[in-house]
């Protein structure tokens, strides 16, 4: 909330500031560097194949930021299947994609999870940083849930519960940005 303090003149209106907030790439570029962005729905096999073919054709030294949209339900199911069969957990389709990228001689040099999504990346942290994931949900988003509708608050509550049950719940990430470089 702003417009506070006696006789303070706001330097920028909320509308003007909102235009700046519409830039989804600013945090991603800050953390991973400015490189060409490729967007990918991981559950879409044809998109994956097209992207991998394109990456294989690049020259050594090139870098890309691949925005991977995960499917939470599919990630949950694939983990459940692997647990049932092998008794271990995997990262599902993101893990398989990373493996496929490595096979065409690209190295992953950074990966961040973005919240709420890539289209409005207001919160970012390394994908393996579960401490920040917890801190973001418990200390920053959950206390501010009052402005959410009831259904969205319930969704957030379910998210918190899943996070308590699965502390390393990277399968909950909606969008993950990978910076990869051709070896």
């Amino acid at each position: 909330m702003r417009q506070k303090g006696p006789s303070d003149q706001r330097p920028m209106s909320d509308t003007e500031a909102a235009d700046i907030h519409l830039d989804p790439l600013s945090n991603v570029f800050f953390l991973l560097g400015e490189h060409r962005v490729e967007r990918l729905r991981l559950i879409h096999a044809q998109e994956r194949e097209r992207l991998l073919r394109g990456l294989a054709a690049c020259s050594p030294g090139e870098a890309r930021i691949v925005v991977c949209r995960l499917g939470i339900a599919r990630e949950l199911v694939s983990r459940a299947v692997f647990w049932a069969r092998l008794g271990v957990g995997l990262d599902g389709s993101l893990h398989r994609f990373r493996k496929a990228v490595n096979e065409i001689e690209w190295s992953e040099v950074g990966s961040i999870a973005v919240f709420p999504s890539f289209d409005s990346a207001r919160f970012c942290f390394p994908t393996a940083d579960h401490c920040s994931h917890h801190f973001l949900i418990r200390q920053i988003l959950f206390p501010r849930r009052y402005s959410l509708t009831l259904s969205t608050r319930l969704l957030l509550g379910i998210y918190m519960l899943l996070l308590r049950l699965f502390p390393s719940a990277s399968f909950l990430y909606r969008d993950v940005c990978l910076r990869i470089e051709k070896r």
Partner: protein
Amino acid sequence: MKTFIDHAQSILGMDLDTSRYLVVGNARWKRSVFLYEQGRAEPTVVAKMPANEVAQQQCDREYSGLKSFAKYSIQDVIAPRPKGEMVFGGFKCYFQQVIISDQWLGRLLRSRRRPRRKDFLAAAAYLTRVYESTRFPNVDDGRSFARCFQHGDFWMGNLGQKGSSLVIYDFEYSRHDGLPLFDLLQFALYFRVALKNIGKVGTEIARGSYDRKEEKREFNPSVEDVAVMFVEPGPFRETVAASIQSYCARCGINREDSAMLLREYIEQNRGISGLAPGWENKVLQAH
């Protein structure tokens, strides 16, 4: 990011974990970057990083306010400690302590129909301690109060509870020579503003398709808010009146001066649309 954390380590004299951090905000305006010391489960320091001149001024003011407040010792009222500053990317960024607390914002959902009297009385009690510990030695000419520390943005979103202590955040609008009672009045008015924003944002925000041009939330008070909190008979006005009375009694502010402060506060909010001259009299009559 590793370069930033490495520089921060040398400024702070801390052993920071370069693999953990949380970035909040917008890289073209202002970001907060939460950093972890090695082996700690929660972040211990946050860097406020401006990305343009206006944001730089905001960060400058906030850090200055933090440093001023750090000089006081107030029972059960604490704030993050300033930790240092650093130039990065052409701008000066500031480090401050992270204090994990139960945020007062979480209480709003329990206050929709009736404000929780104990929250208002607690705010009054904490602000009494701020007044007692920060007031100037001498009262204003002919008055029963002295100038004191004024936070300037004292609303539920900037308050947390850590045990018996109130944690205050965001000192951008603070001043050491402010007026008593103002922060409590600000708390009351923006309580009402926050209440109006309950349930305004849906799942579009999770999908990232929330359009700020279609913003449904309101961030500035209206004349209706002034009326509900200060004028119209009802649980809201009664709660506000009780908290004002409690604060003024404890701070030794007499009726005449409390009326003057209330009038001054309303006049300073003249920018509220529809708040024509004469409203301060309505507020005074109600109290």
